[in-house]
């Protein structure tokens, strides 16, 4: 039996367990800047109740898995966003919520706005909408969890692996 095979046999069940756990538990960081943050709050409220899926908002980036960029990011905020992202522990995911985070949205041609958070972070899921419905955000979180269950790597891992992630270079 070669080493690879052995590792595989040993690691596979562990990997399966880990994928299962990552597919059933997702702690987003409470990070909201603008209008979308209010809809992000709605996601936690009784009608939508994301806790059904093990989605549980954490305040400290250290303990969070997923950063929901809810709102416009401007040039003053950008370094802080990057810092927060760097403070999170891997594996970490980013959801660009709303048109502003996806592309800058209505404010894209302003002098102070980052045109899409994918310019500073690797984004896993884009949620269009202005603001998106809470269901859409919930759908995005579930998308990430499903991808985790299936063992698909996050955008950040793709990026470190040298593959293209987020916005293709233009």
């Amino acid at each position, binding site marked *: 039996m070669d080493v690879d095979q052995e590792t595989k046999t040993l690691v596979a069940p562990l990997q399966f367990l*880990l994928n299962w*756990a990552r597919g059933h538990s997702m702690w987003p960081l409470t990070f909201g800047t603008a209008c979308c943050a209010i809809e992000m709050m709605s996601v936690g409220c009784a009608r939508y109740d994301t*806790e059904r*899926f093990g989605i549980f908002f*954490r305040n400290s980036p250290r303990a969070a898995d997923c950063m929901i960029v809810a709102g416009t990011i401007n040039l003053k905020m950008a370094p802080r966003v990057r810092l927060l992202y760097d403070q999170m522990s891997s594996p970490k995911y980013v959801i660009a919520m709303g048109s502003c985070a996806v592309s800058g949205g209505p404010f894209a041609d302003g002098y102070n706005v980052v045109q899409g958070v994918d310019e500073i972070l690797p984004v896993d899921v884009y949620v269009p909408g202005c603001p998106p419905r809470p269901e859409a955000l919930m759908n995005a979180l579930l998308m990430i969890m499903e991808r985790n269950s299936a063992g698909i790597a996050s955008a950040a891992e793709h990026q470190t692996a040298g593959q293209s992630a987020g916005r293709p270079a233009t």
Partner: protein
Amino acid sequence: MSLLKVLLGVVVIVAVVLLNTVVVMWCERKWAGHLQSRLGPMRTGWHGALQPFADALKLLGKEDLMPADADHVLFLVAPVLAYMPSILIYSATPWMEQFTGYSFDVGIFMVFAVAALFPVAILVAGWASHNKYSVIGGFRAAAQQISYEVPMILAVLGVIMLAGSMKLSTIVEAQASVWNIVTQPFAFMLFFIGMLAELNRTPFDMPEAESELVAGYMTEYSSMRFAMFFLAEYTNVFTWSLFATLLFFGGWGGPLPAVLGFVWLFLKTYAMVFLIIWVRWALPRLRIDQLMEFGWKVLIPAALLNVFFTAFGILTNLAVLVALQVALLAGFVWLVGRLGKQAGAGATTPAPTEVAP
């Protein structure tokens, strides 16, 4: 006692405690959900029963971060230090008549001594993290837990006097005819308040007050180290619920045959857990100076009064004891109500006043 038996006992106890920790975690999220017209975890296992496992596993698989400026040794030691007392405390815990960890003659003393280690861990964690929020959280925890241990111990003094022993199994057996909650309701009230403070739970969750201190002393902890703090907290919830049951609710005593005593014990313990969760989700949080004031100026004098009146009641008879306790309880409720009113004397809900434009 053979080494094998000790080892077996340790394994069984740790397994039982960890299992219960997980169940308490699930109960917290589930019951909190229902108290808020939500559902709580639903997808992971039956009604989300596997949710804590998924969370813990996921945290195990996460990157372990340490801030560059942190005190490395202390930062690594703190989570272990936090979890250690939560397990160690069970060495003195009787589960049933036939099944006790180590039956100390001064069991209750041992329990409080070990529990007092927890704030040390929090202080260490807060200090080592090199984060201003963590430090504030750590200091708050130390101040709060040391202050609230005093009224707690004083409240238990009444129970000890009634049983005439500090041995936990003797205290339980002493309640065979009438539970301490009947003879010591006021002491239970004090004990319960102190317990909430020990557990860092609302309204006393200052050390981790998420809206003030982000996550308090846990702010910089990630991965399994964070999970250990998390687990320690929930283990403590179970631990103190168990002790409240043993001290005030007759432990394993109940109408079922003695062999099934653990059923009673767990039923009562989980009732206590529910009470703790219920209180948590109903209340806002106190301010740190109000908390200290309440601890030193209200709880400690009240606990001393309790000791005095209990002693008096024991010397006379049971009816006097109960009457005194009820009177004390009523007085306490009135006093606390007044404290709130005093602070709010300046403001009342304004009546809509019409002013001509």
